[in-house]
């Protein structure tokens, strides 16, 4: 309780300072601060919000994995994506884990799972029930089974409706790095 009180008090001070310096600090910077704070929270997107993350046109290679905590083969391959994210960071590879857990499981299962496994890759949740509209936009080949993965960069894109082990995953990602 006391902690809450101090926190509350601190927040008042912070607010005070923000107001004081708001003339110096532009709006964009404040927005950035808020964003950093929110990253501890689970980011939930519908497909329109997720789509830009599947089409980033920079020099990086992106590995996007669709998974869920209840999907046994997904959970099994998750450590490989985590390892890849770590070991290939220097090669400009970034992993994005898109959870398809049901919204009523976010607090009960997904958030505890992310904390327990200390996931370092970026995790977002996709909540968009009309899957018939967006599955073909991810890939015409996708029947809708998970796990599923996209590897892409600005010049190449490949979709996989399958499970990976680490060496298979590395082999596929290496094809994008030249």
């Amino acid at each position: 309780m006391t902690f809450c009180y101090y926190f509350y008090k601190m927040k008042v001070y912070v607010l005070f300072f923000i107001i004081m310096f708001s003339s110096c600090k532009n709006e964009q910077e404040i927005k950035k601060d808020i964003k950093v704070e929110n990253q501890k929270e689970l980011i939930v997107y519908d497909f329109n919000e997720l789509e830009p993350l599947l089409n980033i046109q920079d020099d990086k290679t992106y590995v996007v994995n669709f998974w869920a905590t209840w999907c046994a083969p997904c959970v099994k391959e998750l450590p490989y994506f985590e390892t890849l994210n770590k070991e290939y960071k220097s090669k400009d590879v970034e992993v994005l884990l898109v959870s398809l857990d049901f919204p009523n499981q976010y607090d009960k299962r997904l958030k505890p799972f992310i904390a327990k496994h200390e996931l370092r890759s970026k995790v977002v949740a996709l909540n968009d029930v009309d899957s018939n509209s967006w599955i073909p936009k991810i890939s015409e080949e996708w029947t809708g089974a998970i796990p599923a993965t996209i590897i892409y960069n600005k010049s190449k894109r490949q979709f996989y409706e399958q499970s990976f082990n680490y060496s298979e995953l590395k082999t596929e990602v290496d094809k994008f790095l030249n």
Partner: protein
Amino acid sequence: MKNLVKLLFVAIVIAGLSAFTNGKKEIKDGYKIGDIATDFKLKNVNGKMVSLSDFKDAKGFIVTFTCNTCPYAVAYEDRIEALNKMYAKKGYPVIAIMPNNIAVKPGDNMEAMQERAKEKGFTFPYLMDEGQRVYPQFGATKTPHIYILEKTNRGNVVKYIGAIDDNYQDANKVKVKYVENAVNALLKGKEVETKETKAIGCSIKV
């Protein structure tokens, strides 16, 4: 002569390899709209064997690949039961098939299937794809995965492949009932408008 043997050997190896890749491809391809579905004989939760040909009065079938352990399949259990209640008497019974390898998913074994069928009061056959031979013929990749068949003189023709409706989370918020629309059209002797849909599901465990 030696060369001939060598050539034969190479031919056999090539034939063997191509047979292998074909086998893999078959699973991915499966039935397309308009294909004739082969009949099967699978064990029901009541211990009896079930084939499509047993349903003499049926006009067609709502073949549903489903299981106990997939949250998407579970989310649709009540809706599958409702479909059977609504359409079995009109000639389109639900035939549910559990395609998973039970060594990987023990929660889908026959005992668990029997328990679930009893608990939920399933009025449709809930069959075990023992040996996992039927789902690859259909080309099912996930649970739930629906195939609507129409009985014709040529055989059971695939008329619809895909999802039950457009909202797995909430049956009350469904906007489009794909399966109902398809069966209603067939009952009226009309073309099915939306023949294929995609939905998220659990990959079939091999």
